[in-house]
């Protein structure tokens, strides 16, 4: 549906996007993930035809975006970052304008507008002036204007940025709903959003595509990060610690696990081999040594870990990697505590 081939984008001497290729199949929801300034917006601008790439090509539903722009653009709904709207227009007026821009008129335009208003829960503000709407409503007006012409592909640039938590939930529900019937690509730097919404993730940093796959693919790629958290009612002795470290399947004891604030003295973090599950052994060992367990759980590598890992590994490399090698830096050392 969306096919991007070796996109490059330079602004003067600065390369914002370097050799990014991906394709999005029909009906798929893909998340473009990266820190701020990674090249997400530039990439999306190129696949929507707003920004011509310095090199590379984009096809939408088989139509080349720059050779046959009108055909390609009809297949596309685009919600730019920060949702630019005309503040002095009424919601209904704006949607009518957008419908006509897309070549719709009369009854079919009317129907499309009503449908979009209904889907985006905007019926009660249809006559309101856009400038007076809250951010959440503006976001929905932007979405409504992007889906008016029933595009096959929808491109959303940071659709939940600047919203309050309740609005975020509402917009995500809406996006999920919209994604059921069409191809959708969205950019974000919020990781849980990607896990919740997307079938597939593209991780981009400093203009390069670092990794690509489903959330679980990426987890496997980053492998060996599965850990067991064991909590005791009292701090275990050095002997106890050593005993747990020697269990079959345990690779090491981690002192400083990321993102876990539990009390270190009474808690052990066991890094286990990717294929092992040592929880039962941990329990038996604790019983043998007369220790009381208050907590025993497995922590899967989160997308966050993978993300931080990929983006910091890349930064640590003095020389930029060749394209193949930076796709899966799975064998990288643990970052020192």
């Amino acid at each position, binding site marked *: 549906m969306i096919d991007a081939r070796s996109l490059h984008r330079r*602004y003067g001497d600065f390369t914002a996007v370097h050799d990014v290729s991906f394709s999005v199949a029909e009906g798929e929801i893909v998340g473009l993930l990266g820190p701020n300034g990674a090249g997400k917006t530039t990439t999306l*601008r190129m696949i*929507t*035809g*707003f*920004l*011509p790439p310095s090199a590379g090509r984009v096809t939408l539903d088989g139509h080349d975006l720059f050779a046959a*722009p*009108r055909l390609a*653009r*009809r297949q*596309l709904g*685009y919600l*730019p970052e*920060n949702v*630019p*709207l*005309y*503040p*002095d*227009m009424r919601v209904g007026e704006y949607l009518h*304008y*957008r419908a*006509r*821009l*897309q*070549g*719709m*008129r009369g009854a079919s335009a009317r129907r499309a507008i009503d449908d979009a208003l209904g889907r985006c829960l905007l019926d009660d503000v249809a006559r309101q002036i856009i400038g007076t709407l809250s951010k959440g409503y503006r976001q929905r007006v932007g979405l409504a*204007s*992007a889906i008016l012409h029933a595009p096959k592909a929808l491109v959303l640039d940071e659709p939940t940025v600047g919203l309050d938590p309740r609005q975020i939930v509402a917009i995500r529900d809406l996006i999920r709903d919209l994604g059921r019937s069409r191809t959708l690509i969205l950019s974000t730097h919020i990781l849980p959003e990607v896990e919740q919404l997307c079938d597939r993730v593209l991780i981009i940093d400093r203009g390069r595509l670092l990794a690509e796959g489903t959330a679980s693919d990426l987890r496997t790629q980053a492998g060996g990060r599965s850990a067991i958290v064991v909590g005791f009612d009292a701090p275990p002795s050095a002997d106890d610690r050593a005993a747990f470290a020697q269990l079959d399947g345990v690779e090491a004891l981690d002192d400083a696990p990321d993102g876990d604030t539990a009390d270190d003295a009474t808690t052990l973090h066991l890094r286990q081999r990717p294929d092992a599950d040592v929880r039962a052994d941990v329990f038996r060992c604790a019983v043998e040594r007369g220790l009381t367990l208050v907590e025993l759980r497995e922590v899967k590598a989160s997308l966050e870990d993978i993300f931080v890992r990929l983006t910091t590994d890349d930064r640590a490399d003095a020389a930029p990697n060749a394209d193949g090698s930076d796709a899966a830096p799975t064998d990288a050392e643990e970052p020192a505590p």
Partner: protein
Amino acid sequence: MSAFLAVLERELRAVFVSPLAYVVLTFVLLANGFIFWTLISHLSDPAVAGAIAPMQLFFGGTILFWLLAIAVPPLLTMRLVSEEYRSGTIEPLMTAPVTAGQVVVAKYLSALAFYAFLWLPSLLYAALLARHGRVDWGPVASGMLGVLLVGALLLAIGVVASSLARNQIVAAVIAVAAILLLFMLVFFEQLTTDETLRAVIGYVSPVLHMEELAKGIVDTRRLVFYPTAIGLLLFLSARILATRQWR
């Protein structure tokens, strides 16, 4: 075509409901009323020799007319493209199935429509004169044509300026500077002895053309020059708009 009409309709609505447009309208009406009053009281003074038609002076015969010509078109055009850049609405606009040329022409026509609307009431002055004396309608018509032609050119310059700048004020300043430069060509014409240069200035100077048209002389060279120059400027503006996205 539908997309072009959609942009045109939106722009017309935007200009005809904007407060700035009515401030400009009020100002122009006041200034024109003042010009007309000054001319009539001056010309009806028995001490003033010679018979010159008031409407001939009204169209381009006063400094105030040219001040309006410098100030008004940039005020009408500065918003057109700059505001879309500034607010980011250029992005949804240019990713819709509409070309840069259609967008530029639609915006230009909306400004031209309001400009014509600004000048419409000045026909009342001619009607007023007709009640009290004889009016030669030929020069009035050609004077009006001159106002529209010159205005159309200046508005096209304003559109180019607006497509260059993200900031409306900067767009207005660029337009004013360009228009001043164009007007100042008249001084060069008077200073230089170079025949070629004088001839070239004669072809392009709105000040000289207005003089002719207000007298009732409609030179077909002007009828060719203005539409051509406007077409060229709008083409330039569309190219700027299309490549502006590249940065």
